């Protein structure tokens, strides 16, 4: 008795569900002018997501980080895989976290390891704003060389890996700071300087 009733209910639900789907498709077609362009894009966008879930693997992006070497005064490139997407700003934040974490090939990070990346914002004008925790100024006593290296490791890492980034501003604890350690002027945006990078 009860089984039969349940069967009836589910059949009803199936019909209702079917109708709802048809209605939804009609509504979508109506709003997209029936061309199906937007629907198609929607479907395309959903495809990689589905395969990610199936493969259990997030998309990766290879970034180039800039470290110091014990043997010379240049910045040295080292590549690293980070999780990709969804935005440039989030990838940039991950790249900077890796830069702070340090090298896997014996190079040295110019940033104090305690430093946290509070936020990265990339504006439409190509200006990237990076906000670091106060550790970036307090956990190291900078000389001119180490301060220039710290600033340009950040600036070059962002500009080299993220096409929209043309110039970079550094903040500390959400505020503008004169310098990190008494040398390099932070009040103006930095352009990347690859002359500091080993060839």
């Amino acid at each position, binding site marked *: 008795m009860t089984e039969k009733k349940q069967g009836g209910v589910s059949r009803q639900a199936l019909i209702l569900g079917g109708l709802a789907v048809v209605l939804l498709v009609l509504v979508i077609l109506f709003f997209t002018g029936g061309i199906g362009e937007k629907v198609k894009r929607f479907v395309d966008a959903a495809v990689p997501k589905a395969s990610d879930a199936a493969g259990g693997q997030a998309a990766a992006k290879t970034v180039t980080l800039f470290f110091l*070497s014990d043997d010379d*005064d240049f910045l040295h490139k080292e590549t690293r895989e980070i999780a990709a997407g969804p935005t440039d700003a989030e990838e940039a934040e991950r790249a900077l976290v890796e830069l702070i974490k340090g090298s896997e090939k014996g190079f040295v990070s110019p940033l104090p390891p305690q430093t946290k990346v509070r936020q990265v914002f990339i504006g439409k004008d190509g200006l990237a704003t990076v906000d670091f925790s106060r550790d970036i100024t307090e956990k190291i*006593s900078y000389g001119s060389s*180490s301060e220039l290296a710290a600033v340009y490791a950040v600036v070059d890492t962002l500009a080299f890996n993220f096409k929209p980034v043309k110039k970079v501003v550094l903040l500390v604890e959400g505020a503008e700071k004169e310098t990190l350690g008494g040398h390099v002027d932070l009040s103006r*945006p930095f352009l990347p300087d690859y002359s500091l990078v080993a060839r």
Partner: protein
Amino acid sequence: MVIDPGHGGMETGAKGKFGNLEKDITLAISLKLKAIVERNMGFEVVLTRDKDVDVSIENRSAIANNRKAGLFISIHANGAVQKKAAGSETFFLSLNATDEETRRLAYLENNSSELQSRLDPSSDDDLMMILWDMAQTAYIKQSSRLAELVQEELDAMLGTRNRGIKQAPFKILTGVACPAILVEAAFISNPAEEQKLASADFQAKIAEAIYRGLARYLRVPE
């Protein structure tokens, strides 16, 4: 002429392995340089600090600008993450300008008579910034010459690695309205150079070298 002993007070600057602080070494060298210049040249030398006190970067440039300094020399000891980093170098300002600013500046330099008409009079900050940049640009050539001569003398006298002259966007150099250089005498982060920097003999050599470079600059200004 204004001599600026880097750092001071709570702001120690770079630290050496043996506990020497950049702020103490810069003051010692600056006092020696002031004495040599006053003994040998006829003009007044003002220090931005003559003891171990905090002086903000703005106040340092204000001292130079209020006293109408004709030359500004900032004395520093370098610090690097790499212990092996060594040598002497002399900096002058790079304006760290963005592309747009650089283009605007280049345009204005070549069309200075049109300056008033080309600028939006409502944006006072922009105007001040551009005028300031123009003044700075005018000093850069002289600063570069002074840096070159001082660096040659450092190289001749100190026996340290010659790292040459370089441009950097150093805050202390951005606010000074005259030719200005920043001397990084040697690396306090390098244990061997730290010990040299702490010795009165080596400090005197640095002061003498800067003085010789300065003397050559004043004799042959261009």
